[in-house]
């Protein structure tokens, strides 16, 4: 099981800030993305966003990163703080 987190406009579009997600290891971020896309909209649009950013265990990550049980995977749009 991993934890998925959604922030800002993605959180609003999904009406969801977090969920538990079952994975079968070995598994990459890209594998999770493919499974989420099968849910259809609004996941499809969010995950197809060219500006989508990812973090695994609170560090910026890329889709090829491997995941293990207990990981935290976050999806968020580009940062606009300061």
């Amino acid at each position: 099981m991993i934890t998925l987190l959604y922030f800002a406009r993605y959180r609003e579009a999904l009406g969801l800030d977090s969920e538990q997600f079952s994975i079968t290891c070995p598994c990459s971020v890209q594998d999770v993305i493919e499974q989420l896309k099968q849910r259809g909209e609004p996941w499809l649009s969010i995950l197809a966003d060219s500006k989508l950013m990812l973090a695994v265990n609170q560090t910026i990550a890329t889709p090829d990163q491997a995941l293990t049980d207990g990981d935290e995977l976050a999806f968020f749009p580009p940062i606009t703080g300061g």
Partner: protein
Amino acid sequence: MSSLLEAYVQTEDFDITQEYQNLRENNSESGAFVSFLGQVRDFNEGDNVSSLELEHYPGMTEAVLNKLLQEASNRWAISRAKIIHRVGALKASDKIVWVAVSSAHRADAFAACEFLIDALKTQAPFWKKERGKQGERWLDAKDSDQAKARQWMK
């Protein structure tokens, strides 16, 4: 000697006079003090802005701010550095972010302070949503902010 580095993410306002006083207290080794204050503008991209909602990623935000402070301390001879970033509901002219640095000499303090705010804007996971007469909208990241942050990459 190691620098005193502090990062805070909070909903509460902060007092600039008090922050300056804290920065200077027991800090006679420093001859230069540089700070940056960011506040909510009442316009953006031609539209009126009455309030902002600032969201962040608890845990990652603090980790990134501490990493940036450590990087600043490694690159420049600074004695102290502090970042305060507010989250939650803010209105026009409310303070958003404070970055303050002390150093023996001004060049290091200026550079470290500018680096911290530029890097924070592109690396620390904060998101702004604006509210105005036109309704509400999530802000898009600016290419100019990305370009500013890239200037500091070695």
